């Protein structure tokens, strides 16, 4: 037992004009300091997170902005030792594969999410798929690269943009499945009942009522998936690799892309390569952070929820 605050202040009680107790006046010192340490620690942890994000952005802006020039968007990546160059081929390659990934992942993801929310619901199969989808959501992306390498690169006899697109689609799908299901579940049941009561088949109710009600949420999911795959490097390493020239129109052979270009150039001994890597890094980070912010604003806007 510690000395109670009352006993400590006992003698003072005889004196009639007692100073008003402060906020912490009657709290034991140990409890007081534990509380102070908690508040300082938690605030410091949050500040640390903000400082890291700030320092990453400052680093990218300082190092990356120097590399910005018209040539960046018009010229292809330079070969080893050659001067100048841009990253136009990497930007276009990234765009092509990301769009390919999203175009494949969106219908599959939305339909699978619809199955979980509208048809399967609490059936064993739906529970299993939901569970495995959550696991696929945080599966190491390098393993997806190995899978697509075995599935496509080896049988097709070489790296290709198609394999890169498929790898990105596999990463994007679980994100879309998850958000679509969550958003469809927020749609109130009476809306569906009203649709069915009008005599519409269930598929029409889903397409014209529930999808429409959850529209902004589903779009958010697609944007988040886009942000997720735009910066993925590991799966592209074994599927699309890289290429210091324009890629073939049929997407066969190595396809230049920003993340792998950054990886290879940042660690290179050539000054102009490293400069291009920084410019690419700034470009890709700004794009991804912008996408994430837009996605969050759509979700929290007047139409969301």
């Amino acid at each position, binding site marked *: 037992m510690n000395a109670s605050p009352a006993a400590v202040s006992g003698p003072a009680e005889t004196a009639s004009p007692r100073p008003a107790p402060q906020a912490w006046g009657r709290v034991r010192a140990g409890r007081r300091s534990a509380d102070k340490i908690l508040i300082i620690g938690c605030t410091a942890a949050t500040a640390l997170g903000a400082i890291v994000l700030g*320092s990453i952005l400052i680093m990218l802006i300082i190092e990356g902005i120097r590399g910005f020039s018209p040539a960046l968007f018009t010229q292809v990546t330079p070969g080893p030792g050659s001067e100048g160059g841009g990253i136009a081929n990497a930007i276009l390659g990234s765009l092509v594969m990301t769009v390919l990934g999203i175009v494949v992942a969106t219908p599959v993801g939305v339909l699978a999410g619809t199955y*979980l929310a509208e048809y399967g619901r609490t059936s064993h199969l739906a529970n299993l798929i939901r569970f495995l989808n959550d696991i696929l959501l945080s599966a190491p992306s390098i393993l997806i690269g190995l899978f697509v390498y075995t599935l496509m690169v080896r049988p097709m006899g070489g790296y290709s943009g198609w394999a890169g697109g498929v790898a990105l689609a596999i990463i994007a799908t679980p994100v879309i499945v998850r958000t679509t299901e969550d958003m469809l579940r927020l749609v109130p049941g009476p809306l569906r009942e009203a649709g069915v009561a009008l005599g519409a088949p269930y598929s029409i109710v*889903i397409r014209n009522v529930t999808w429409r009600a959850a529209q902004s949420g589903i779009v958010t999911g697609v944007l988040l998936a886009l942000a997720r795959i735009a910066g993925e490097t590991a799966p592209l390493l074994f599927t699309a690799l890289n290429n210091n020239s324009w890629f073939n129109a049929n997407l066969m052979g190595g396809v230049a892309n920003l993340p792998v270009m950054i990886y290879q150039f940042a660690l290179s001994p050539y000054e102009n390569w490293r400069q291009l890597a920084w410019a690419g890094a700034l470009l890709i980070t700004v794009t991804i952070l912008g996408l994430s912010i837009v996605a969050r604003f759509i979700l929290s806007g007047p139409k969301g929820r």
Partner: protein
Amino acid sequence: MVALSENVALAARPEVARRGPSPLGDRIFRFAALASALLVLLVLAGILASIAYGGWPAFQAFGPGFLVSSAWNVGREEYGALVAIIGTLVSALLALVIGVPISLGIAIYLTQLCPGWARRPVAMTIELLAAVPSIIYGMWGLFIFAPLFARFVQIPVSNVVEGLPIVGTLFYAQVPSGVGVLTAGIILAIMIVPFVASITRDMLDQIPTVLRESSYGIGCTTWEVVRYVLIPQASVSIIGAIMLGLGRALGETMAVTFVIGNANRLSASIFDPGSTIASRIANEFNEADGMQLNALMALGCILFVVTFIVLIIARLLVRRAKVA
């Protein structure tokens, strides 16, 4: 007459319903939804099958010894997973030791301490940390963090502990370049913080306000409310969130490849370079063929099994907590 006309109308109604949109479209849509959902299952099975198939020759050639051998010699075709396995586990555990207190701090700050107007921007900042691509963390770690870490931590600490037993080996950097297993652990910690923090925050938000208010009402301090009321309430899902962070840390590739140093030797010091399963695959896969390729696939297989066990436990814990 009235009754008769009503009978007629009732009989006519099913006719109208039957002339509605064909049930074929309905069935096709339902089938497409089911097929898409099954595709998720198929992909997961495909990942396991392809990696197991690719790694099988290595498992067959080296047997269980593959797991405990530290050899990795391309010339002599000798491969063992031990160095990569230890590097993966140590860097992931360091990430948890460093990252979990920070994540809990952020979650507590966001739910308990943060003034209302700042809550959204602060939460947004932390969530944006999760959106930064892994390769950018790698560049930040290598070009910004590692030099600072070498100068202000590795060199002073190495000077102090040199020659001491145990700590002298554990914290001694032979080449204080800033890269190493501990650097990888710190970068991984920063990367898992937003995930663990946001799940923990959601869980703390779900605890009924009445519990918190009544503990403040009997005179608890914020620390006591957090320690004796909130954390015990959310403990199961916090452990789930931590396991989810562990799953991410185990499989993280690009950031680790930048900062771990990619050395293939066992070292007792966490300041020394090492390698993880993912970083080794990223480094060697494109130049590998024959048995080296199989050995890398076998490494991938080990990573698959370990990560999936961790993730399954994580999801079970988080889910159970959500239902309860």
